[in-house]
Structure formats: structure tokens, C-alpha cells
């Protein structure tokens, strides 16, 4: 065996170009995949380790109404001895300081908050000092940046509702703020005893009540959560329950779901890079084996068995794959800090991104075993090597065509299975992984047919008087059997390379720029019935546009088709929407649909007023995705409870809503007349306010209507934009990696094709063609092959990206012809130049040397 090790090692050392190209190419592909898996693992571990600190409790009861004494006592009892409790109330409202108003989240806390995690204070403040101060006096705890934005400092006063509070403390970081990159306003903490003084606890206020529970270390969290959930939904409150009980597991699931959306995309982009690398590796290795055919035959003639040759080349592959994995580990180690920067503000600040042992193990396995599997289809070259070839006058002995095809087809199964498994892991979905892999196989077959057609047709074009083109077309036709794999490989590489930016572009376009909708400047909530006319008067004549006011009434779904809502959810709600289990929703009515919504199924709502006396159910219009989550369809009956009165409605249409339009929209619109008797608040949006007057208008609005919350849409869009930029950067990071890997693949393929034609180039030189002519022929030949392959690839990529976007990203797709043209030009240039570079050393040699 040592002789095989020596032979393998010598061979790799001697073929440095092949060795380096193989390792670089595979390492790039592995790096992308490793960075993504490491990111996912690091985040997962961080969530597992810190979830209690993020939630600040083991479990939380939250409701839109105060918990009754009985509910409190029962929850405390079920939590068991040794448990700790903390109460909290929060609401969004306008705050004013130094004449400047802005929306903020007011959080009233008691002396026990937080049960887990901690505030990080500016200076030398102690938590006891702060928490006691908040409970005793009318003081607030704010972030220094919040105070600065309002032009305030320590000791200044801040108006919240009807009361004024002293800014007494600054914090640098508050507990549970890890995933609050997108907020409507800053958080301001005050003591629970001083919340009432704001005067904001009245009808129409959107308060949220929380009871945080910290269980003893030995407590059974799932059991306790289940018992409390059952108790609160049981005999005390007939279904549906209006108290949500969530624990760390729910938060973990929810956060993971959010991150899975992007890591799934990134994972597939990483897999694209890995696939390209695998494809190029197989191509390189195939050419390596072709070049080694004579040496293999010599070994066989000297008494080596086929098994020994198999061990020799398999060992080489494993060594190359292993080295590529180690290079990938180093590269990933260097790239992860950049990845952390890209996601800064979106992921927890103290998240440590690193390559875990498990991920490193997987990548070493994928690198070494994966490269074997990827190269399995080209192993037939090894079996084609026969010592007979070494003798004069013998040319036979190749594997028969049928056996070759059968071997090739069977040997495709292991790499395809590996690809399928990796795709399932990367996308975290059996369906998406299967579609991804199936799509690749079908596309490769399609490219094969396209190559046969294009290269076969080149003979027809060779009937030209131009000698250069005649040689180009004849070469392409004559070498079509060799050129076909190159064509397919280039087409696949370019397809995958162009697919990534196309999907990315569609996604970003949708996030950033809703079409045909004027973005509002402010979004107004909590408008009281009595304030409708004064509000319209306020905006009249200012040039600012107030949208029609949308009524909003909170209510509950009691039953669906006669089945209690909770039971219905258990049967129909999608598993990944677990946290969606709320029973309270906002309802509205409107005479005509907003521009941001479109009916996609069913007729418009009946415009006549519904009357309870009619005996017929009222009509409901439901948002399309909401209906999918609930598992309801057209014609289903819903019993709603609005302010204690139960009424039955029927779903008559489904709407598609552009939520990013920031227009007042609702999951459910009810027929006119249903909500007429119920007390309600209103929503509206304001547009056409000049940028330099926005703060002034907001201040005036808050002064005139202190209870109305004004959401600064432009600020929110700005926040969303900042997050989008970060996400886009991470997407581009992966796209660039896929592109680089793809270009390395194209380089490798073009180089091997050029080397393969070395003899033809030599022959032309001997026959008198000058170096310039040969360079031109080479460039045209490879430029055409690269261009034709890329054109087919781009056409397919438009269709594929449309399909993938439809499947993964809610039908978001954007036609991007510039990228296509760019790719086409780039592919032609890269293929031409690469071929030129590869053949240059041959072209520059003297014909006499070539003859020798």
C-alpha cells in the first residue's frame, strides 16, 4: 500500500495546477455551505442558551385585558412553590418632551422585573436603586438615545398622556431586546404604580397585560405550561380563551422560524455554490483520469489490479477533498466575522458566530466522501484504461457503450442522493429540497438536448467562405461529443449563477418598493369616535391627505363551522404557525377596498346593511394568507364574539393584501351593519407631508389629540430599509460566493477543453496558421460555446427563478434583463479569455517543437 500512497502523492505534487484548482474550487463551494450551517448552528445554540433571558421568564401569560384575581391565583398556584412572578403592562402612545412628540412603547414594570436577564445601565447605577426609584416616584428609565432624540437629558421632564415624568435613569441595554431591530418606537419604563396617572387606561387604549413566571430550577416547564393553559381555557373562561400562555420553547420556535426564512434561502444559495464546485470537481477529475489513462494502463501491465488503481485514485480524491475541507474551515473562520457584521442588528448582539465541531465534521465528510460521490460518474474512465492500449496496433478494449451508459446512470444516483439530502437540510423542507434537486436533474437533461441541437447545427453554418468561421464551426461540430459536457456544465453553472441574483433582486424589489401605492407619512391609531370630525377638520386645507377612516373593533372567533376555535386550530393550523394561536382579532368594515388589496377569490361583499333580524349569516372577506393559516375556505361559517355578542358570518371572498403599503388593512372585513352598534376606534393614514414639516405636524397632532398614536411610517420604512440592506448584503455575500465558484468552474472547464484540443492547435500551427489566427479561432469557438450555453441558461433561469420565487417567497419575482445581458457578455468573455489563457503556452511554442 505505501507504493500507492507514494504514487498518489507524487502525482498530485507533479500536477500542481490540477491539485490547486481542484482544492480551491471545492473549498469555495464548501466554505459557502459551512458559513451558512455555522451561522444556523451558532444562532440555534445561542437561542437555546439564552432564551429565558430573552423572554425574561420561563413562561408568560399575556392578554389584552387585566387578568382576574381568580386567574392570577390559579396561575400562581399551578406554577408551584418557589416560583417568582412579575407583572407588566405595556402600550404604545405619544410622548412629548421639549416640544417634540414621538410614538413610544410605555412599559410599566413592578419591582420584580426582570426575572431573568438584566438591564445594563449607564454609569454606576444599581438595579435596586433604579427599580425602587421607579416604584416610588414619577420617574422613567429610558435609553440615552431616546432622550437625545427628544432633546432631553437627565432631570428633564417627559409628558406621557396627562402626566409628566422625570427622566431619572439611562440604560444601555434592556432585557429581552435581542430581537427588536424593527420597533415602532423606543421603550420607556415607568413604575407600575404610576401608570394610572397617565390617564391612558381607557376605552380604545391598546394595552397589553403580562404576567411573567419564573419557575424553580426543578420544575417541569412543558407540564406547567400545559396545566396553566388548560386551567385558563377551562371552566373559568369558556372557549375561546383570550389569554395566551407562551414559554421559552414557543419563542425559540418563532425566532427560528423567522431566521429559517433567510437561512433557508442562504442555504440553497450555498448549495448552489457547492453543486457548482462538485460539478467542476467532477469535470476536473474526469480530465485527470483521462490524462492518467496511459499511466493506469502501465500500472495494470506491471501487475497492479484494478482494485489497486481504484484505491490509488480514490485516495487521491479523498485527500483532495479533505484538504479542500480544511481550507474551507480556515476560510469560514475568516469569513464568519464578516457574516456577523452583515447580520449586526438583526441577530443578538452577543451572538458568537463560530464553526462548531459538528459542522466541521459534516463539512469534512461532505468534502472527502462528497467529492468521491460527485466524481463517481467519471470513474468509468478508470475502467476504460486497459494495458492493451500500450501495445502497437491495438485499439480495442473499451467498455461497451451500453455498459458505459448503465454505469454512468447508476453512478449518478449516489451524488444525486447526497445533493437531495443536503438540499433538504439546507432548505429545511422535504418538498423544497426535492424540487431543487429534481429541477437540477431535469435542467441538466434539457441542457444536454440543447447542446446536441446547437453543436449539431454548427455543421450547417460551416458552409461559409470565411475560413476562420469555417474552422470554428467545423471544430465545434467535430468535437461535439467532447464539447457537450462542457456546454452542459457551463450552462448549469451560468444558470445557477444567474438564478441567485434574480431571486435576490425580486425579493429586494418587493421589500423596498410597493408598486402603484403612495406610501403614507403617518399612520394614526386609537382615533376615538368623537375625534373623527375634528381630525378631518385638522387636516382640511393643509394640503396633507388624510385617508378615509377605517373602523376597528376587537373581537374573538368563537367557532369555525360549529367547532370551538381552539379545537379547529389544533386540527387545521399549520405547525409552523404555532404562535399564531390567538383568538382576538381586529375587524373592520369598509365601503370599498383600499388600493393595497385585491379580491382573489369570490365576489365582493354585499353592500347592503346586514341586520341581525335577517336570520342569514353576514358576509366576511378574509385575507388570503390568514385563511391558509387558519385552514378555512370560502363558504366556511365563523361565529364571532364582539363585545360579548355572538354573531355568525360566512366567508364569501379572499383578499390579497400588500401589507408593506402601510395602509390600514385587516385580516377580516365584515359586511356593513355588523359593527354599527359596537363601540370602536378608527385608523387612518396621512400622506403628502413634506419631509421638513413632518415633526411639526406630529407635534401639532399630539397636542390636539394626545391619545392618538402617530406611527412615523417614514422612520419605520427607514428601519425596515436598514434591515433590508443588511439582509440584502448577506444574500449578496452568498450570491457572490456562488458566482466566484461558478467562474472557477467555467475556468476549469474551459482550461481542460483547451488542453484537450492542444493537438488540433499544434496541427494548425504546423499547417501554417499564425498565432493570431489560432488565438482568434480559439476565442470564437469558446466564446460561442460559452455564449450559447449561457443564453440557454439565462432563458431557463428566468423560468426557474419565477418558479422558485413563487414557491419560496410568496410569488415575488422581478424580471431582470440587465443581469442576463451582463451574464451573457461575462460568460463569453470569460470562456474566450480562459481558453486563450489555457492554450497560450501551446500557441507560443515553435511548430518544430510541436512536431518533435
Amino acid at each position, binding site marked *: 500500500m505505501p507504493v500507492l500512497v507514494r504514487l498518489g502523492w507524487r502525482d498530485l505534487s507533479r500536477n500542481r495546477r490540477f491539485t490547486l484548482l481542484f482544492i480551491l474550487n471545492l473549498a469555495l463551494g464548501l466554505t459557502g455551505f459551512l458559513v451558512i450551517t455555522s451561522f444556523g448552528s451558532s444562532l440555534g445554540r445561542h437561542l437555546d442558551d439564552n432564551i429565558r433571558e430573552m423572554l425574561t421568564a420561563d413562561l408568560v401569560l399575556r392578554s389584552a385585558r387585566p387578568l382576574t384575581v381568580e386567574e392570577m391565583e390559579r396561575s400562581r398556584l399551578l406554577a408551584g412553590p418557589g416560583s417568582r412572578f412579575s407583572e407588566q403592562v405595556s402600550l404604545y402612545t405619544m410622548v412629548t418632551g421639549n416640544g417634540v412628540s414621538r410614538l413610544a412603547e410605555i412599559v410599566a414594570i413592578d419591582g420584580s422585573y426582570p426575572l431573568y436577564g438584566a438591564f445594563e445601565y449607564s454609569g454606576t447605577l444599581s438595579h435596586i436603586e433604579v427599580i425602587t426609584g421607579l416604584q416610588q416616584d414619577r420617574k422613567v428609565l429610558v435609553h440615552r438615545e431616546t432622550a437625545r432624540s427628544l432633546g432631553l437629558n437627565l432631570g428633564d421632564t417627559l409628558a406621557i398622556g396627562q402626566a409628566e415624568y422625570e427622566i431619572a435613569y439611562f440604560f444601555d441595554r434592556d432585557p429581552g431586546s435581542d430581537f427588536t431591530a424593527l420597533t415602532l418606537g423606543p421603550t420607556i419604563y415607568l413604575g407600575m404604580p404610576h401608570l394610572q396617572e397617565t390617564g391612558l387606561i381607557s376605552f380604545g387604549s391598546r394595552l397589553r397585560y403580562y404576567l411573567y413566571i419564573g419557575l424553580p430550577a426543578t420544575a417541569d416547564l412543558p407540564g406547567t405550561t400545559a396545566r396553566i393553559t388548560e386551567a385558563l381555557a377551562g371552566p373559568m373562561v369558556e372557549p375561546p380563551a383570550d389569554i395566551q400562555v407562551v414559554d421559552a420553547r414557543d419563542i425559540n420556535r418563532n425566532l427560528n422560524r423567522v431566521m429559517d426564512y433567510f437561512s433557508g434561502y442562504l442555504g440553497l444559495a450555498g448549495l448552489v455554490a457547492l453543486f457548482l464546485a462538485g460539478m467542476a470537481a467532477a469535470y476536473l477529475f474526469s480530465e485527470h483520469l483521462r490524462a492518467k489513462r496511459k499511466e493506469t494502463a*502501465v*500500472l495494470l501491465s506491471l*501487475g497492479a489490479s484494478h482494485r489497486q488503481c481504484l484505491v490509488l485514485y480514490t485516495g487521491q480524491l479523498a485527500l483532495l477533498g479533505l484538504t479542500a475541507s480544511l481550507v474551507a474551515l480556515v476560510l469560514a473562520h475568516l469569513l464568519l466575522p464578516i457574516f456577523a457584521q452583515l447580520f449586526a442588528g438583526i441577530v443578538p448582539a452577543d451572538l458568537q458566530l463560530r464553526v462548531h465541531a459538528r459542522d466541521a465534521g459534516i463539512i469534512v465528510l461532505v468534502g472527502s466522501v462528497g467529492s468521491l460521490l460527485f466524481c463517481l460518474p467519471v470513474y468509468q474512465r478508470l475502467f476504460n484504461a486497459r494495458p492493451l492500449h500500450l501495445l*502497437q496496433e491495438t485499439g480495442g478494449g473499451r467498455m461497451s457503450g451500453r455498459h458505459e451508459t448503465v454505469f454512468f446512470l447508476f453512478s449518478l444516483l449516489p451524488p444525486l442522493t447526497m445533493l437531495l439530502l443536503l438540499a433538504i437540510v439546507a432548505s429545511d423542507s422535504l418538498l423544497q429540497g426535492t424540487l431543487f434537486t429534481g429541477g437540477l436533474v431535469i435542467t441538466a437533461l434539457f441542457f444536454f438536448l440543447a447542446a446536441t441541437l446547437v453543436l449539431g447545427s454548427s455543421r450547417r453554418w460551416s458552409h461559409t467562405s470565411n475560413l476562420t468561421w469555417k474552422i470554428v464551426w467545423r471544430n465545434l461540430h467535430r468535437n461535439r461529443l467532447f464539447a457537450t459536457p462542457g456546454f452542459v456544465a457551463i450552462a448549469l453553472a451560468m444558470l445557477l449563477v444567474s438564478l441567485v441574483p434574480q431571486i435576490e433582486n425580486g425579493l429586494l424589489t418587493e421589500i423596498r418598493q410597493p408598486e402603484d401605492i403612495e406610501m403614507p407619512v403617518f399612520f394614526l391609531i386609537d382615533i376615538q369616535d368623537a375625534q373623527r370630525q375634528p381630525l378631518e377638520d385638522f387636516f382640511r386645507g393643509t394640503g396633507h391627505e388624510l385617508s378615509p377612516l377605517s373602523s376597528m373593533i376587537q373581537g374573538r372567533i368563537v367557532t369555525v363551522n360549529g367547532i370551538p376555535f381552539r379545537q379547529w386550530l389544533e386540527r387545521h393550523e399549520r405547525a409552523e404557525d404555532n404562535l399564531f394561536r390567538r383568538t382576538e382579532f381586529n375587524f373592520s368594515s369598509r365601503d370599498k377596498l383600499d388600493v393595497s388589496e385585491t379580491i382573489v377569490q369570490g365576489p365582493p361583499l354585499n353592500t347592503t346593511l346586514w341586520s341581525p333580524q335577517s336570520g342569514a349569516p353576514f358576509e366576511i372577506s378574509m385575507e388570503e394568507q390568514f385563511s391558509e393559516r387558519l385552514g378555512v375556505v370560502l363558504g366556511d361559517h365563523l361565529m364571532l364574539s364582539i363585545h360579548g355578542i355572538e354573531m355568525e358570518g360566512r366567508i364569501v371572498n379572499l383578499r390579497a393584501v400588500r401589507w408593506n403599503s402601510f395602509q390600514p388593512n385587516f385580516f377580516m372585513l365584515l359586511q356593513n351593519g355588523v359593527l354599527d352598534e359596537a363601540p370602536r376606534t378608527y385608523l387612518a393614514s396621512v400622506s403628502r407631508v413634506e419631509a421638513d414639516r413632518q415633526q411639526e405636524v406630529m407635534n401639532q397632532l399630539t397636542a390636539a389629540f394626545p391619545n392618538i398614536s402617530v406611527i412615523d411610517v417614514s422612520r419605520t420604512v427607514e428601519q425596515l430599509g436598514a434591515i433590508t440592506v443588511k439582509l440584502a448584503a448577506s444574500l449578496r455575500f452568498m450570491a457572490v460566493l456562488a458566482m466566484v465558484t461558478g467562474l472557477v468552474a467555467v475556468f476549469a472547464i474551459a482550461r481542460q477543453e483547451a488542453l484537450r484540443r492542444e493537438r488540433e492547435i499544434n496541427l494548425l500551427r504546423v499547417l501554417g496558421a499564425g498565432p493570431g489566427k489560432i488565438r482568434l479561432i480559439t476565442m470564437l469557438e469558446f466564446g460561442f460555446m460559452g455564449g450559447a450555453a449561457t443564453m440557454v441558461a439565462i432563458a431557463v433561469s428566468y423560468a426557474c427563478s419565477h418558479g422558485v420565487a413563487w414557491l419560496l417567497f410568496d410569488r415575488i419575482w422581478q424580471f431582470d434583463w440587465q443581469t442576463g445581458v451582463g451574464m451573457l457578455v461575462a460568460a463569453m468573455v470569460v470562456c474566450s479569455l480562459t481558453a486563450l489563457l489555457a492554450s497560450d503556452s501551446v500557441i507560443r511554442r515553435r511548430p518544430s517543437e510541436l512536431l518533435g
Partner: protein
Amino acid sequence: MIIEVENLHKAYPQPGSGTLSVLAGAGFSLAAGTTLAITGQSGSGKSTLIALLAGLDTPDSGRILINGQDLAVMNETRRTRFRAEYIGIVFQQFHLLPHLTAEENISLPLELAGRHSSREHTGRLLEKVGLGTRGRHLPGQLSGGECQRLALARALVVEPVVLLADEPTGNLDVTTGREVSDLLFELVDREKMTMIVVTHNPELAKRCTMRLQLEQGVLR
């Protein structure tokens, strides 16, 4: 007899349908220590015959007995083992491994067979073929004649019963060719080996104890 070949048939499939018959009942016997030259026109099947004798290919029918063992009934693994133990081959194109030194090229057959290879042994062989000072050189650093001498040393390292040579001087100029053939016959004679040479070279053929011509698939 060290080699007995009886009624050997071999045909190759041709594109389309039909086959090309290369050997059609070839046969001969060879005593130990003799040398045989096989001549014939290009395409007459000389190399096919030597491939069958080396166990690199199998006949369609007939028997090939070498040292009493029938190659025609062996599977590929057994043929490979047999070849490694009893047969040495010298090719026209040398077929040395370019990344191994002269010493390493010589010891390769032994190592592949899992047998011990000492530096003294390879050194002695290098001395025998006149390359005593070239052990650490790569084939690329040797001349054509030196490469063929090296290939000869590699063929002899397993101490074969039969040496098969396929146009051993075909790639060399006249003077070098003569030097190599001198060496070849000297070593065969000294080692008491049996040798079969396939050649177009009448001078080389004349030096063999037996000469057969391959015509229309049979030896005459």
C-alpha cells in the same frame, strides 16, 4: 515446453455489424531459454498475439499454456497475478512513470505485488543495463535509449520466466536500437530467459533462435 499456444482465435467487433478476425488458429511451442521473433505486416495481429500471451486480453478460443498454466481459462485477477510473477513486458514507447525516479520505476512491479524491493537489487539491475549512476534521475532526464534500458530493467526486476517485447527498438535510432538489442539478448542469454519479440526489424528478428511470420491470422 515453456510456452504452448494452440489454435488461437481472436476477432474484434467492427463499427456497424460484423467482426474483424485477427487471429485464426495461430499456434506454436517454445522451449525454455529460446527466443522467438514474430514478424508480419502492420495490422496483421502481432500486438494482439503478444497481448494474449501477456494475459492483457483473452482469446475467443484456443489455449495459451505458459509454464504449464492456461491463461485462457484464468479470470482477470489471476491473469494479473500470473503476469506480475512470470512475465516481463517491454513496450516500444517505454511507458515509464514520469514522476518516479529510475530506481522507483524499477522497483514498482515488486511493490505492486507486495514483494520486498531492496536498493541493492534495483542498483544491480541499473548496473546491468548501464544506468548505474542514473538511479535518482526522472525518465524526462534520460535519453530514448536510456529510457528503453530502464524499461528493460523494470521488466527484469520480477525475474520473469518469459520476456515479451513489442517493437523494443522501434522508437530508437539505428545505433541506439542496436545497443539496446545487444543488451536485450545479452541479458536474456545470461538470465536463461525465454523471449518473444514482435518486430518489423529484420536484423533484430535474425538474432532470435526462431522466427515466425503472422499472415492472415496464422503463424508460418
